Structure formats: structure tokens, C-alpha cells
């Protein structure tokens, strides 16, 4: 795997992401500066990590979405390259138009950091092949603006095309407003683009991969990606 982790000013989970990629794939990712206009040669996975690019000023992800490196990411994705955006990365992908919809303030208007449960809706994507469809995983969230919305038509398309990959659920996999901490429509926690090669998700699987630190439910995502890319290579 040759992963590239994008670094924007104000991004702050890039170190967590890099460590997890190294830990799960055995390969050190390249750290790519926002002002660069090209991805390193041979990149097969672009990861936009979490954090507060540009302080979340204006709109989360808005300023980062317009940086030079994003043009490179757009063309990489256009050629079918895999792109993973986590938290602020998801927000950036939406702002960049690579994914539909927007992430609004959490319903209760507060930042929330806690473990949540996600129901994995599909296992037939390069991002989720490490899980079984219907499996419930426990991963943390840490965001103030994770409330996914899009217009009715977009939501209908996302649902119709099976592009909702993760949903907030109860520990036994029920969709229940009490377990949807940010108020996202249809409890949406992660979605794919039309082509299925760009995934955006609010929770942080990269923080749940080490047995010594606690839960390891995030590993499946990275293990699956490593395998998918290994197979492709």
C-alpha cells in the first residue's frame, strides 16, 4: 500500500492516521502538504485525516477543499483511486464536491467525543471488506459538526444506490434516535461516491486499532483496505 496522508494547516489527526496506517499495513504513508499540486508517484490511497483545517473557520473543510492538492485528489479519484476522508476529511470531501451533502452543527450544538456504535451496511466495498454486512462496530467520534444532511433527492439516491456504508446504531444494530448523537439524516455516518472509490465518514476508526489502548474495531477498515490494495497490486 502506498498511502498519502494530506496535511492542511490546522489538521490535527494526521499523526494518529499515519501511525494507524503504518501499524495496519506495515508501510509508512507519505505526508503530503496542502500547497503541493501533485500526489507522490504510485499513490494508491489518499487519506484526508481529521482535525480542524483552517480552524474550521467559515465552514468546516471549506478552505481546505480549495487548496492546490485537492485538484490532484480530484483527478486521482476520477481515475478510480481510493480516497478516504475521516471527520474533517469527510467535511473537506463534501466541500470539494467529491461527495454530496453537507455536515452541519450537531443537533445539540455541542462538540461530542465518545464511543459510538456503527452498523456496517455493506461489506462489498474496498473500505468495508474487513467487516460483515450488518456487523456493529464500536468507534469513537469527536466532532461538533457531523450532522449529515442533503436534499431529499440526494438522500433517496444515496439510499437507492446503497451508498450509505455506515450508520449510527444501538449496540445491537438498531437505528434509534437515542444512538444518533449528532442528528444526521437516516443516521448516516459514512457514505460513498457514485463510483464507490471515495468514502467519507465522521467517526475515527484510526483511534480504535490497538489492543493495548482498548477497543480494536477500527482495524477492519484498514485491514480491508490493505488487502484490497494488495490484491490490486
Amino acid at each position: 500500500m502506498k498511502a498519502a496522508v494530506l496535511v492542511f494547516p490546522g489538521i490535527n489527526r494526521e499523526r494518529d492516521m499515519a501511525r494507524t496506517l503504518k501499524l495496519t499495513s506495515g508501510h509508512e504513508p507519505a505526508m503530503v502538504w496542502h500547497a503541493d499540486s501533485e500526489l507522490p508517484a504510485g499513490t494508491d490511497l489518499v487519506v484526508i485525516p481529521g482535525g480542524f483545517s483552517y480552524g474550521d473557520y467559515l465552514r468546516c473543510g471549506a478552505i481546505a477543499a480549495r487548496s492546490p492538492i485537492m485538484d490532484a485528489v480530484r483527478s486521482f479519484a476520477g481515475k478510480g483511486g481510493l480516497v478516504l476522508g475521516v471527520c474533517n476529511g469527510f467535511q473537506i470531501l463534501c466541500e470539494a464536491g467529491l461527495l454530496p451533502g453537507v455536515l452541519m452543527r450537531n443537533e445539540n450544538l455541542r462538540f461530542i467525543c465518545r464511543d459510538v456504535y456503527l452498523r456496517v451496511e455493506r461489506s462489498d466495498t474496498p473500505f468495508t471488506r474487513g467487516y460483515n454486512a450488518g456487523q456493529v462496530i464500536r468507534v469513537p467520534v469527536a466532532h461538533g459538526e457531523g450532522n449529515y444532511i442533503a436534499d431529499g433527492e440526494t438522500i433517496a439516491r444515496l439510499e437507492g444506490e446503497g451508498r450509505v456504508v455506515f450508520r449510527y446504531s444501538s449496540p445491537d444494530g438498531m437505528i434509534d434516535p437515542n444512538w444518533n448523537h449528532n442528528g444526521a439524516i437516516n443516521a448516516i455516518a459514512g457514505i460513498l461516491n457514485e463510483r464507490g472509490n471515495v468514502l467519507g465518514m465522521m467517526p475515527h476508526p484510526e483511534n480504535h486499532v490497538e489492543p493495548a489502548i482498548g477497543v480494536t474495531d477500527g482495524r477492519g477498515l484498514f485491514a480491508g483496505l490493505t488487502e484490497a490494495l494488495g490484491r490490486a497490486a
Partner: protein
Amino acid sequence: MIPNATPITPELVAEHGLKPDEYKRVLDLIGREPSLTELGIFSAMWNEHCSYKSSKVHLRSLPTKGPHVIQGPGENAGVIDIGDGLACVFKMESHNHPSYIEPYQGAATGVGGILRDVFTMGARPIACLNALSFGAPEHPKTRHLVSGVVAGIGGYGNSFGVPTVGGSVRFHSRYDGNNLVNAMAVGIAQKDKIFYAAASGVGMPIVYLGSKTGRDGIHGASMASAEFDEDSEGKRPTVQVGDPFSEKLLLEACLEIMHKGCVIAIQDMGAAGLTCSAVEMGAKGDLGVVLDLDKVPCREEGMSAYEMMLSESQERMLMVLKPEKEKEAEAIFRKWGLDFAIVGETTRGNRFIVRHQGEVMADLPIKELGDQAPEYKRAFVNAAKPKVIEADDVPAPVGLNEALEKLIATPDLCSKRWVWEQYDHIIGGNTVQRPGGDAAVVRVEDGPKGLALTTDVTPRYCEADAFEGGKQAVAECWRNLTAVGAKPLAVTDNLNFGNPERPEIMGQFVGAIRGIAEACKALDFPVVSGNVSLYNETNGKAILPTPSIGGVGLLDDFTKSATLAFKRAGEAILLVGETTGWLGQSMYLREICGREDGAPPPVDLIEERENGDFVRALILDVSATAAHDLSDGGLAIALAEMAMASGIGATLDDAPDDIPAHAYWFGEDQARYLVTVPAAKVADVLARARAASVLVSRIGTTGGDALTLPGESPLTVASLRDKFEAWLPAYMAGEMTNA
């Protein structure tokens, strides 16, 4: 604009907070009338906050040395050796008054300031904690303050990207007009790459870095600043706004230029901004400093020398660079989009010279600005020792269950989840123990070491007996670190008191320091940094004396840390330490009986140490499966917390005959812990305790889904949890922060 040569009237002097005799000292020192800018500089350097004029004499009695202390008080933060070539850099600081005026920004900039103190020394911040004291819940301002302060702490730390892993929150009417926001930051540095404030070398460039200077936080003379303002907008706001985004860039840029070896000396601009940082760099390095204010990056137009010297704009640094590295350093700062300007140089001789628009605005002796600050031995009186309350004189509750259920739902004892869920406490991927336990545990990158972190103080004890209260704050901190299996290494303190000009307040201050000093000595727990916040009072009513203690402990292997959750059914619950049923100043007395009186529990430091060492050993050799120290609310509360953390219940044996049941279950005797031990190891553990002369008794067994106190019906853990979790969210539901 008031000209620099304005005649200095007694009113102007008073507006600057200088007493007549202090002003006389200024005149004696410089042999002439100061210019307005100079007056501003003196007022900044000699106020209580910067000069420690009332506290210095007493702070000297704190133990500050130890084999692992690399840097004690006197720099931006304390530094201790944690082995493997690494150092831990930490400090706690208050932002009380700003947080009362504007809770969000006040708290946010408090966090920003303490983070800067830590990374100024070359450390990457790895954790933040905070200690918050608010007024009574029913006070009309309290909810708004809680909401804003918590959002502000989270807002800054989350965006900056440091996990906020612990802290404390309390409510008491004595903080009604004066809430306390104490923030602590902890960082890790290479032991041989610590950076200090002292400049060295003559003719070295002094560089200004970070954000631009605005008119933020210029307190000075309200009259003077009113006159500075020519437009009709009226009073100029002095509120500082935090910019965590810029601070994150500043962090990365600073660490990068430090790494590249560009830095000779570095000092953040905190209180009294440019003045304090420039004077400190020069004075510590035995050098003079010349500043050219025309070079200072300003955010607003027409800023005077006075304003630039006193501005408290955030996210700024001053550095002395190696001249040959200037270009390289500048390129790094530009890359991060930060301002970079050479604003002066170091000089021979000990003058502090400030130039602006071709004029010398200030020319002062640099050493004396710091060293010759007034120092007071303020009068103090020790309060009479309160009388000891006998357990028999305190009524028993209607039922133990009822008392327990009531206590865990009180503002001070209930779950603070509503608070810490607004803090990103996992960023970094190193948080081994999240908020909610005795101490947070954070892995030192790539392990196997871990740091245990906590902040503690029991203000009601300090109010009753400042000396015992001071001891207790340190002891509880030490105990919390021990309860997760860490070896306590050192502390930072944040001493919050009322007006030191009142002898009874000064008595509290002196008493608390004596207590802290005694406990730190007895526990080999030196003070390596700290902060003093005085004048915390409104309408002559002082806060409860609140010496917050922030402690750092070390785990050689973070995977060995203990948590307070019961692990499995059928394990023995052991109580370590002596229980006498001390109810004076207890939560039981306050919340159930409506009384805040009596002497607080005394702290036997020898026992404290022996019991703690015993518990730590049990944790490290894996005899103990869970551990928890006893504090507010005593034994019953500690048991409930262990049960709630796990979902596993417990059945408890009868209280000993010689102690009234309610005093046994709710008394707050110190130096105590609860541990659980697998049934097979009980005999061995008890034998070891006897051998070590540590008092240990078996008091019950884990299991089931309810907590059953003797003679009471079972209380399900789920129902306890509901009560424990409910109060704060319900209370806060009435509030929305400013949109």
C-alpha cells in the same frame, strides 16, 4: 492619543494599580519621572500577577528539588526526567477573571496560554487538564458560565489538537461572583533539547513570531485608554479572543525551528505581552534589550507604544535567533503563514530601551524591573482551628441507600460526562484511561511508558483549616496517581485565594502553602511550576481558598495501569487504610445534614505513603484487579463508582461495631483505597499487608447487578447510574451558549 511625555499625576499612578510607595520606588530607581509608556511597563511588571509580590516570600518554602527535577519553578513550565532521554514539561495556570467576563474566550485563551508555556520549552503538548470552580447551581449566572467555560476549553483544545483528559468541576456559592478556571498542560520533549528564556550573546536578533498585535487585553488605566480612543465607538474592549488555529501553526513552526537548531532563547507572550517577555529574556541573560516598535506587526492602526507594550494579544512569541539561521527560520514561519519580524536586539549593559517613530519611549534598567519589584511580607492571621465533630453527634440518615442515592446525584459528586464529552479526550491515540477515573493515563508515544495525570483540591477542607487542606490537596493528588499504579513524580500548583491585603486571607494562603510544602516533602513530590491568583473576591466576599494541585506520575508500562471498574464477580473487596468515620466537613454533612462545619479529616502523611506504596505494589504485581482511592463522599461513594464503571454490583459486610454505620460508609478519612483481589489471592494479600503494617480489611464481595449495603435492599447499578448521570445534563438543559 496621550503623549508619552504626559505628566504623571497621582490619579494616573493609581489607575495603573501602583501604590504611592511603589511609585516612589519607581522614582528612586530611575531618578526621574517616568514616561507614560514607562509607567505602563512598571504597572505591568509590578502587578501581583507578574511580580508575585505578595506570594514570593512564601513560595520559597516549597520543595522544588528532586533527583528527577530538570527545571523547577522560574521558567515557563516545570521539567522532569521520565527516562529514555525524555522529559515531561508541565504547568497549570488560572484564567479566572477573563472567564467570568467572557466565559468562552476567557477559558479558551487560558488553555491557549498554558499550551504556549509548554511548547515554548520545546515540548509537544500531549494532554490538558482543568480544574473548574463555579458558583451555586441556583445562582442566575452559573449555568451560563459553565456552558461558556466548558465550550471554550473544548473549543481551544479540540481545535489545537491536544486531548483534554481530566480535571474537576465543583459548585459552591462562594464562587458566585468569581469562578475559577485553572488549566494545566503537559508536554513531552527530548531531555537534551529543552529551551529556556534566557538570552545570550550581544547583538543577537530578537524576533517576533505568531499573530499580529491588537489592542486586546490592555488593562492599564481605564482612564488613559478611554482617552486613547478617538472614535465614537466608546469603550475599547479588552477581551482577548483565542485563535487555536494560529496557535497550532505556531506550535508546528516553533517545534520545526527548534529542531533545526535556530533558537537561542524563547519566551511566549502571555501576561503583559511584549513587556514581560522582552524583559525576562534580557534580565535572565544579563543583557540589555532594544526594541523597535515600528517593526512590530500590528492588527490595528495607530497603535501607541504604550498599547503595543501592554497588549495581551494571543498566539505570539519572542525569540532570540542564531543570526546565521535567520533566513531558515523566517522561511519556516512563512510556510506556516505566520508573522515574522525582527523587532530588536540584545545589547551590552542592562537597559531596556523601547523606540517608536524615532523617539525613545522607554529607557529603564532591565534587571530592576524584575528584581526590584516590591516584595511584601503581608500581615496574616491564622484562623482558629475548628472543633472536631464526633460521628455520634451527626444524625444517621433515614436509610443508607437513600443517602447514597442522594449524594451521587449532587452537583459535586455526580458524573461530569456532560463536561468531558465536549473535550476531545482521545486525539493522539494515546489516551489509555479516559476521564472518569482517578487519574488519566496517557501513553508516552510508542510506549511502554505512560503518564498519569490529575488535578485535585478540596476547598471546603482548606476553608476550615488551610494547613490540613493544603496537605490534603497534595495527598489526594498523590493518591489518585497511585490508584492507577503510577509512581507520583512532581506537581504544579495553582493557588487561588482572595485579597492578600486582608490578614485572614493571607493566613489561608500561608497556611495552605505550609501544608502543601509539608506534604510534598513527605511524599517526595516536588513542586516544579505553578501560578498564584489573588484578589478573587466580589464585594468583599472571597472565594473558598482553592490551591489546585496538578500531579504527574509515571508508569513504566502503561498496560499495567489499574482502573476503578470492578472486573468480575466473586472477587474480594479490600479496604486499605484506617477508617474512623470522620464526618467533619464531609459531603455527607453538607449535603444530607445541611452543615458545613467541623475540622476536616487530618492527613497522616506517613500512613498516606505506606498505604499508597502498598496499593501500587499490588497493582504492579497484578494482585489487585481494580483500585480506587477514597475521597469526597467516602466508602459508599467509592463503591458505587466502582460498580457504575463496570456494571458489576457488590455485597458489603456489616460496618464495624465501634463506628456508627453512616460514619463508616460516608466518613472521609484520608489515606484510604479500595482494591479488588481474586478470591485465591486474598490470604496472601492480607499477609503482605500485616507484614507491611498496613491496615487492610475485607469488606465485601463483587457480583450481581446491584450494590447491597448491609441491612439495605439492593440498589441496581443501572438505577445508580441513571441518578449519577442525570443531574448535570438536566441542569444544563436550561442553557444554550451564545449562538
